[in-house]
């Protein structure tokens, strides 16, 4: 392809690209810009002052730790679920697949409520645990439970298509060559899955970082205990501290920009590898 052709193609795609930006401007780009403009309105020093409070820093740290744990747990759990759904045949497989995807569609507030109705002090299991002094809700554990629940489908969704596309002949070939099930997984399936697993874990991490609906129900919104960054933003906004809310919001926006850049990078990487393999 010569450079003239490339240029022509670039020029002809300017129109739809320009249109996309025009549409996205009021929809997404300007609102996001507003967060940054407001956050920086009174200068970088005020921005830092609003950010470097004990509550704000705690909420950011807490969110990052929860997101990491969520991603790590779902990496194992989600990959396992995808493997079972894709490689085994059992009655009710499709229905189970649908149920595992539910958290994408049902409001996260409902996820939070359902957890409370099960594990909360007045919940079905929680009622029995309460006299023993075990209280999973309104603790770090409750927040983690909600985040695993909510981000689970993203992990499965990233890994299962790769597994579905993986020709069964590869595994059969490995087994005929005398590989054990585990060896087949480790040497044949896992390398093909790596891109999907990383994408899935990053997606789970990103969704956990921004999770609000379920967290607000199960965390008790305790500052310095269970208050995640999105909850902090909401509380501060509700009580009129726009500067504090915006500074943390700006940090979250930057973080998720970096995360999704990584996700795109990894998807592209695993895509090109597949092409090379093919």
């Amino acid at each position, binding site marked *: 392809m010569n450079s003239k052709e490339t240029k022509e193609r670039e020029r002809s795609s300017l129109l739809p690209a320009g249109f996309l930006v025009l549409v996205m401007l009021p929809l997404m780009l300007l609102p996001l810009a507003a967060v940054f403009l407001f956050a920086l309105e009174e200068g970088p020093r005020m921005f830092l002052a609003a950010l470097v409070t004990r509550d704000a820093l705690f909420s950011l740290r807490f969110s*990052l730790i929860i997101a*990491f744990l969520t991603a790590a747990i779902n990496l194992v759990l989600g990959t396992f679920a995808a493997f079972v759904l894709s490689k085994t045949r059992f009655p009710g497989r499709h229905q189970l697949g649908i149920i595992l995807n539910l958290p994408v569609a049902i409001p996260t507030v409902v996820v939070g409520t359902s957890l409370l109705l099960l594990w909360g002090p007045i919940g079905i299991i929680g009622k029995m645990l309460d006299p023993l002094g075990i209280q999973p809700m309104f603790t770090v554990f409750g927040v983690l439970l909600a985040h695993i629940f909510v981000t689970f489908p993203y992990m499965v969704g990233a890994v299962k298509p790769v597994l579905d596309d993986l020709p069964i002949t590869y595994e059969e070939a490995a087994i005929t060559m005398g590989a054990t099930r585990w060896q087949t997984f480790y040497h044949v399936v896992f390398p093909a899955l790596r891109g999907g697993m990383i994408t899935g874990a990053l997606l789970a991490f990103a969704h956990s970082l921004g999770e609000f609906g379920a967290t607000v129900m199960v965390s008790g919104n*305790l500052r310095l205990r269970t208050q995640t960054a999105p909850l902090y933003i909401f509380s501060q906004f*509700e*009580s009129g*501290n726009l500067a504090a809310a915006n500074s943390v919001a700006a940090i979250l926006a930057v973080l998720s920009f970096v995360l999704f850049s990584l996700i795109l990078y990894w998807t592209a990487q695993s895509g090109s590898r597949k092409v090379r393999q093919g």
Partner: protein
Amino acid sequence: MVHKHGSLALSLGTALLGAAVVLWTIWPLLPVGRSTRPRTLLVYGFAIVEKTLTRSIFPAFQKKWKDRTGEELEVIGSFGGSGTITNQLIMGVPAELAILSTELDLLRLRQAGVLQTEAWKELPHQGIVNRTPFVILVGRGNPKGIREFADLARPGVRIVHPDPLTSGAANWAIMAEYGAALRRPGASSADGQALLLGIWRNVVSQAGSGRAARTQFDNGFGDVLITYEQDILGNSETGSRPFEIVYPRSTISSEHTVVAINKHIRPGQRELVRAFLDFLWSDEAQRLFVKDGFRSVEDRFNRGNPKFGTVPDLFLIHDFGGWLEAKKNIIDGIWKDKVLREIRP
């Protein structure tokens, strides 16, 4: 090859950045120069008291506790609409103390079994820590010429009102509106209902708490807001919208009530909770409340304070037979069953 170098630098940069974020995140968890975990007190409160508690009352009490026992104390709070907080308490959050906007919410805690007795009634002032009258907030220059609650029923006045389902302020505001109509000479309950109907036809936005409603008003929603006088006096520096306060002739004085949730208080914490409760009614704490625009339960702290406006006819929830009666006959009986139904049939 240049491309290879570029991507190597990129991955190295990303890895370094990632490592820095990880290190920063887990820093407080590392055993570097860490003292023992301080003793904690867990307080849930309604939205309006957040600022005064976290910035004045908690630090003052922490200092007092340290002077007395030598112990570091950490006070952890969670704040929201009074109804929201009450729902969380019923769901089982482990709060040791709760400060709620209306006694109604305490009665709900009693009904739900969170409180075994009406424990707040055994405290000084029946558990009331401070008060504040309900007033009307309007834009500067009072462009709509609002003087009384009755003016809010005029067509074209856009009202920001908190939501009675989750907000204590909203319940107080309904009682203020209804009561103001009822206290005119010769008025009957029908006049109260008519005023509520007129006002609620004009409500353009409902917020989860009095505090959230104020944020909406500050952001340019509506022409008027009905809220706590304290929320205006105590937060005059926030909000970009110029405003002025209208003191109606008749309005209600809200009374905010504290209770210890004995079910959640371990024996080792009892003395601490007791000390905190005592502190709330001490001269020092009451002065801190007044400084932030609350009216003290002791009149000597309010008298002659120039920042408080005058309300010629200040009434109390007691005048309606207490919150149980007011909830049954007015909030549910009139506002919910009649007014709301007529607006949204």
